[in-house]
């Protein structure tokens, strides 16, 4: 446990200026961005500056059986960095250097505390991008998003974090420093550790260096917005666009509740009598191909009874995007608190899922606005609540249970991009079954025999 000896040893390892022990400071590490989960105040917070310090911390924690909770910026939406059993929070905010940008190999090597948008700003000088773009990218760290395998708005065309990680350095829960992967596109040496550690939510090792894959920035883009009087038409447009062999960079949906709330709050000129809108953006390296893709989208929208507006200038594009960007802020205005879920279904089941969310909202008398990444089936039903209203909170929990149930019954998943953490731990077995849970336990025990790394998250250790 954490006593003065432990804290003194931390100060020796990290330097006194990199160790927080005051209660008031510790309180500010008791949460992340997840609503409605328990909070716990850690015993100490440390700010490592190099890998060696983390290795020493692991040795210390193993001796004393002290839990370690790695933390990026704390924008996680599933409770990942919350120090459930007190212990040590390891904040990566000071390990935030971009170590190398190798434009010829299309890689960037970074420390985990680098902010995603800072990485993008740095590689943009070479005409490159790092595509994963979670909503929190202006704050979230590369390390945190690797641990959570974050998605974003461009998932349909560009994939998610796991598609852009080529190798890492990890301090194992037993203290060894392990490097795997590298700058080569092809690498089949050993197990595919990269895919094991991406999305491991800090339970298998502490990531201390990351090799990211970069791609050339698309030179052309075209954005449009389409309105539909029937939800079914919007859903069919999504699948028909893909069937027409167009893969838009962005294919976002907003339901009626969201549209009305956005218009009410931001007055961006949206029609409030429609059932759904789609925000579509195609991009690419060639002007002609982008034009062709845009025309195909317009054709599909027309066939499905949609009305559309196309952005001819950057200012018009910004205006279209303003509606999407206003979705969460607008919904957040209605009630004191919002619960944002990320149940995800196959693209072809979007409409079924939207209808089922609407029914759940009715059944439990809750206000739910749904928007999200229609192209990849990743929806964000946003439940608007007043946390001081006990009755409403009970209805909320039941509604959330049902949302997950229906996502699974449609062949979907509990979480598209937020992770399991604490928030969805109790649902895990429903998706991967008893054998899945057992397999996860065996992996966890093999790599972290003392269960000191982020215990209580992702892997249910007891039934």
């Amino acid at each position, binding site marked *: 446990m954490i006593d003065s000896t432990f804290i003194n040893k931390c100060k020796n390892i990290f330097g006194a200026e990199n160790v*927080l022990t*005051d*209660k*008031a*400071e510790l*309180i*500010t*590490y*008791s*949460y*992340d*961005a*997840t*609503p409605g989960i328990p909070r716990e*105040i850690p015993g100490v917070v440390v*700010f490592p500056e190099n890998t060696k310090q983390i290795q020493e911390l692991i040795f210390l924690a193993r001796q004393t059986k002290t839990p370690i909770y790695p933390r990026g*910026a*704390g*924008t996680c939406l599933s409770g990942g960095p919350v120090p459930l059993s007190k212990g040590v929070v390891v*904040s990566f*905010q*000071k390990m*935030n250097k971009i170590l190398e940008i190798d434009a010829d190999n299309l890689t960037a090597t970074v420390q985990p505390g680098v*902010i995603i*948008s800072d990485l993008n700003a740095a590689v943009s000088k070479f005409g490159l991008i790092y595509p994963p773009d979670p909503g*929190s990218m*202006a*704050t*979230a760290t590369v390390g945190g998003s690797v641990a959570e395998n974050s998605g974003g708005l461009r998932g349909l065309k560009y994939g998610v974090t796991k598609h852009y990680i080529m190798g890492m350095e990890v301090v194992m829960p037993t203290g060894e420093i392990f490097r795997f992967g590298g700058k080569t596109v092809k690498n089949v040496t050993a197990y595919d550790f990269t895919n094991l550690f991406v999305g491991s939510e800090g339970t298998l090792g502490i990531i201390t260096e990351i090799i990211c894959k970069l791609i050339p920035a698309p030179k052309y883009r075209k954005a449009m917005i389409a309105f539909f009087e029937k939800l079914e038409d919007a859903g069919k447009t999504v699948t028909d666009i893909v069937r027409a062999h167009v893969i838009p960079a962005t294919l976002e949906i907003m339901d009626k509740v969201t549209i009305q709330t956005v218009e009410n709050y931001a007055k961006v000129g949206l029609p409030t009598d429609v059932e759904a809108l789609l925000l579509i953006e195609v991009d690419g390296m060639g002007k002609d191909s982008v034009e062709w893709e845009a025309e195909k989208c317009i054709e599909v929208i027309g066939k499905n009874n949609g009305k559309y507006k196309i952005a001819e200038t950057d200012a018009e594009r910004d205006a279209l995007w303003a509606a999407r960007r206003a979705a*969460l*802020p607008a919904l*957040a*205005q209605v009630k*004191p*608190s*919002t619960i944002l879920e990320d149940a995800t279904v196959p693209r072809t089941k979007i409409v079924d899922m939207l209808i089922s969310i609407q029914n759940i909202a009715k059944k439990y008398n809750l206000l739910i606005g749904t928007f999200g990444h229609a192209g990849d089936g990743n929806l964000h039903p946003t439940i608007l609540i007043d*946390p*001081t209203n006990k009755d409403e909170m009970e209805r909320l929990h039941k509604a959330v249970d049902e949302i997950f149930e229906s996502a699974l019954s449609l062949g979907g998943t509990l979480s598209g991009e937020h992770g399991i953490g604490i928030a969805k731990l109790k649902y895990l077995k429903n998706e991967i079954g008893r054998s899945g849970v057992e397999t996860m336990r065996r992996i966890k025990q093999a790599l972290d025999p003392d269960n000191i790394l982020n215990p209580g998250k992702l892997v249910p250790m007891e039934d």
Partner: protein
Amino acid sequence: MTTSVFDNIDALKKELLRCMKCGNCMAACPIYNIEKKESSVARGKIALGEIALSSEDIKIDDETLVKLLFNCLVCKSCMMACPSQVRFDRIILGLRAAIAKKKGIPFVKKAIFGMLKNPELFDKGMKAFAVMQGLFLKEQQEKRRTPKGFMKTLGKRFDENFVIPELSKESFRDKVSEVITVKYSKCKALFFTGCSVNYLFPEVGEDLIYVLQKNNVSIVTPKRQNCCGMPVMVHGDIDTARELARKNIDVFEQSDCDYIITVCGSCGSALKTEYPIILEGDSNYEEKAKKWAEKTYDISTFLLKVINFEPPKGKLNLKVTYHDSCHLKKSMKVFAEPREIIKKIPGVTLLEMKKPDACCGSGGSYHLTHPETSLKIASSKAEDIKSTTAQAVCTGCPACMMELFESLHRANAQCDVIHTISLLSKSYKEEEKGNV
């Protein structure tokens, strides 16, 4: 006033509830950007407030907690990035007021704030200090002063690179006539000078009077106007802030003016945004505060949108960059107008810096109480200004002017600091000389 966040814990708790802890404020907070600690940013302070107000885990007067809650510039940058529109200005001031209520105001602060309430006493004090400034500050070229003797021991800020404009022995309001009536008067405006213009930058006041006269506006500069209250408000002394607000409103009421003009982002923000908040529920003053808030304009907005000013013709040959004062942009929402004015001045090229609306590091007394963080924020601002190669940085707030004045000096930059109104006035003066 039982429903305001300053008097009612439940009202304050309700404001805290809006925060979803999404962390978007971290990208905007100048202090977080330097310190990288959760407690530096709005989200962390809100979490502390939640626990201190509703559990026994920590008390609102806990020593560290108080220190953390005072580690905020009140620059409102977080509010620009907040998707839930958390009203962090109310929250931080409400929390500080709660601390002040529980702990009392420290003796030194109380003495200073007490003096602010009494304009004659404050005026005498400032002038006495101006006479005595040689004891603490040695003179440098061009009316700058730098610390000497024991001042240097007062903290990191007061090293040999600290510079401050010379305090004027005669205040601006002493020099200017209280009422200036122009021949073809378009309207009558009250000039709310603010303390920095009155004692440190009287030339900004003179330039404003000159520009308004040129544009046929009659000006009243009441001698009895008080400090706007912002400096005491940010320390949680809400009683003194209210008293100052009421006294100022009384002065406005007696003035028979159509508008109030400010040349300071913080004073303007106090009159336009904060008075209606702190006087909420005050049966005598709430309505008056709202009325005068609507009549309050930053000079740039006034010139462009109220009187449609006569653009100057005098040529200046100057490359300038513009720094957005936090309170001017984030509170008064004034950012387009000053740029528009600058662009109308012949021969002036506006070169935008990297993040023109990043805080300069001043935060009023923050730069004295938190020198290390403030100096780092200020130095990155100075570097951004330097890399524009501008010959002068323009801004609309004397507090920023003071900070930029010092940080550019520390950064060895050959760049003047000038208020937007002074730049405009220069051009009018060149026009009079026939230099068009």
